[in-house]
C-alpha cells in the first residue's frame, strides 16, 4: 500500500474514533507528546493503560461477585481508579460508563452497578480492539503518520 494511502487510512481511522466518541482530547495530547525521543509514545501509553486497567477490571468483577451485600464503597474506589486510568488515554465512552457506575454505587443500586459494569466491559473491549487495529495500521504506514493530527 502506498504510504500516503496508508497514512490517510490511519488518519481516517483515528478521525472516526474521535467522531464516534471513543476518544477525546487526551489522545491528541498524547500524540503531541510523541517526539523523536519517544516515537511510539502513544502506543506505549495505551499498552501501559490496558495492562493496568485489566487488573482493575478483574478486581471490580471480583467485588461484584461478593454479592451479599455489595460493598459499594469498595466498588466506588476501584472504579475511581479505573476512571483515572481511562482518562489517561482519553477513553471517552469508557469514562462515561465509569461515571454511571459510580452513580449507581452512590445510590446503592446493585442492579444498576451490574448492568453498568457489563456495558463498561463492552466499551472497554471495543476500544481496545480499535486501538490495536489503529496502531497496527499506523506502524505499517510509517513513523510520520502518528505525528499528524487528525483534527
Amino acid at each position: 500500500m502506498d504510504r500516503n494511502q496508508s497514512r490517510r487510512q490511519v488518519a481516517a481511522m483515528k478521525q472516526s474514533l474521535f467522531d464516534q466518541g471513543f476518544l477525546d482530547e487526551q489522545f491528541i495530547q498524547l500524540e503531541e507528546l510523541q517526539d523523536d525521543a519517544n516515537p511510539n509514545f502513544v502506543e506505549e501509553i495505551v499498552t501501559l493503560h490496558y495492562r493496568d486497567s485489566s487488573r482493575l477490571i478483574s478486581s471490580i468483577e471480583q467485588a461484584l461477585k461478593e454479592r451479599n451485600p455489595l460493598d459499594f464503597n469498595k466498588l466506588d474506589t476501584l472504579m475511581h481508579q479505573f476512571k483515572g486510568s481511562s482518562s489517561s488515554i482519553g477513553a471517552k465512552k469508557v469514562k462515561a460508563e465509569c461515571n454511571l457506575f459510580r452513580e449507581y454505587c452512590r445510590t446503592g443500586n446493585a442492579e444498576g452497578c451490574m448492568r453498568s459494569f457489563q456495558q463498561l466491559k463492552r466499551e472497554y473491549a471495543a476500544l481496545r480492539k480499535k486501538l490495536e487495529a489503529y496502531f497496527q495500521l499506523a506502524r505499517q504506514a510509517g513513523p510520520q503518520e502518528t505525528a499528524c493530527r487528525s483534527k
Partner: protein
Amino acid sequence: MDNGCFSSSPRHDAFPAGLRVLVVDDDLTWLRILEKMLKKCLYEVTTCCLATEALKKLRERKEAYDIVISDVNMPDMDGFKLLEQVGLEMDLPVIMMSVDGETSRVMKGVQHGACDYLLKPIRMKELRNIWQHVFRKRMHEARDFESHEGFDFEGIHLMRNGSDHSDDGNLFAVEETTSIKKRKDADNKHDDKEFGDHFPTKKARVVWSVDLHQKFVKAVNQIGFDKVGPKKILDLMNVPWLTRENVASHLQKYRLYLSRLQKENDQKSSSSGIKHSDSPSKDLGSFSFLNTANKQQNDIATDSFSYSDGTLLIQMDATSYEGDLKGIVSEPTTEKIRASTSEIPDPKVQKSSQKSLNKPFTSVESSEANHAVFDCTIPTEYSWSEFPKGPLKEEQKTPVQLEDSLCQLPLHGTQHHIQIDQSQSIASINSNPSITEEEVAAKLETKPLYAGYESDYVNPVSSIGSAVEAFPSQSKSLMVSDQSSEPTFTSNLSLKTQGFNLDCISDLDFYQRNLLLGGEVASAPLDEDLNFFLLQSECYNMNFGLQNIDMSEYYDPRLTAEVPSHFYDSADYSSVDQSLFIA
C-alpha cells in the same frame, strides 16, 4: 541561596527550566504521561508510584526538589497526608491531582495546604505554569523573612539585637520593622541560614485554635522565650500540618500581642495613677521594679517580644495571653501588682490593679478583648490572695482544671471568652502566686523578679528558664499584685468583674492549669516569680502560700500559650492577638 532566588545551581538561571519536580502517582500510566509532559516543559522530573517512597526521597535530600505533584488517591498513603507531611517537613509547594473534581475534595486539598489542585486529564499548559507556585513561595519566603526577621531568628539573635538596642526601648518590638530590618541586615547571614532552608515557604492558612495556640505557647515556653524560633516551636508542637511559616507568623503576632499587653498595662497602671503601672506592663519581669523598672520592663517585655523570636513573646504572651484568655487577667494583675509593688501594696495595688484591670479591660475590650480579660482577671487575680491558699500546689497537679476554670471565667468581652481561659489560667497562675512569700523569696533569686521576668523575656530568664519565665513574670506580677493588694483576690479571681470563675479555680488550680496549659511547667520560673511577687508583696499579703513554686510551673508560658490558642481563631486572629497581646 539568595532570597527570592532558587538555589544557585546553574539550572536556576534558566528558571523555570530545570525546575525539579517530584511526581507521585500510583497510576503508572499517568506517571509516565506526567513525566513526559514535565520533561517537555524542560523540568527535571523524578517519579514515584508510592507516597512512602516519595517521602523517603524528599527526606533524603530536602533540597533536591522544588515542587511536588501528587495524586490524591494512593494505596499506601492518603494524598492529603502526604501533602501535609511535605508541607510541614520540607515546606515545598505541593500540587494535588485527581480525576475527581468534587468541590469538597478540592477544598480539602486547599485546606491541607495544596497550592493547586489539578483535574485529570491534565493538560500541558497546566503543567507549564507550575513554576509559579515555586516562585510565589520563594517570594513569600523572602517577604516573611523580612518581616519575621526578628522573630525567626533564634533567640540568640534577638538577644543580640536586644542588647544592642536595649536603650531604644522597643527597638525590637515587632512593630519596629526598621530595627528589624536593621538587624536583618546585620544578621543577614543568620537569616540566610535560617531561611535558606525554607525557601520556598509554604503558606497555608492556619487557623490558630485555642488548642493550637496552647501548644504554641507551650512550645515557646519550653524553648525559652528568648531562644524561641519558629523551627523549634514547630518541632515541639508536633503538629504535622503546621508549617514553619505558620509558626513564624504566629510568633510575630504573639510578640506583638505581648508587647501590646505590656503597653496597655503600662498605660493602665499609669492611668490609675500608680506608678507601678509602668512596671506592670513591663512587668513581665519587672515586677520588682516599680515604675522605672516597669518602663524598661515594659519595653523589655515588648522587646522581648520582638526579639526573642518568640520566646519573649511567648512568655509575654503567656502572660499576656493569659491576660487574654488568661493573660488578660494577668495583665491587669501585673499592673496591679506593680502598683502594689511600687506603691502601696494593698490599697493601691488593688486599686490600681483593679483599675488597671478594669481599665484595661475596658480599653482592652476595644482593642483587645484579651486585655479586658486581663482586667477582669485581675480582679480575679486579686482574688488570688485566696489562692495562695496554697491551691497552687495542688493546682499544679491539675492544670487542666485551670483551664476549665478559665473557661469558666466569663470574660467580659466576647473575646474574652478565650481570654478568660487564659486569664483564668493566668488568674490561676496569679492566684497561685499565693505562693508564700517565702517561697517566692526563696525562689526568686533576685528580687527583681520582674526584672527577672523582664530578663526572661529578654533573655531567657535564668530563673525561669524559658518561656515560662516570661510568663511567670506576668503572672507573678499579677499575682503578686493581687495578692498583695488584696488578699481577697483569690475570691476575686472569680473575676467578679468579668465573672470569671476564677474563684472557682482557686488560684492554684488556675495556676496549675495555666501551667499545665503551657505544658510545661516552668515550674522554676514561676515559682520564682511567685516568690518574687511574694517578696514584693510582702505588704500585700499574698497568700501565696502557695506553693508558688507550683505557680511557676504554671506559669509556664506555655500555659498561656496554650490558652490563648482559644482565642486564636484565625478569623479573629487580629483581635485575638490584641487581646492576647494585651500587654
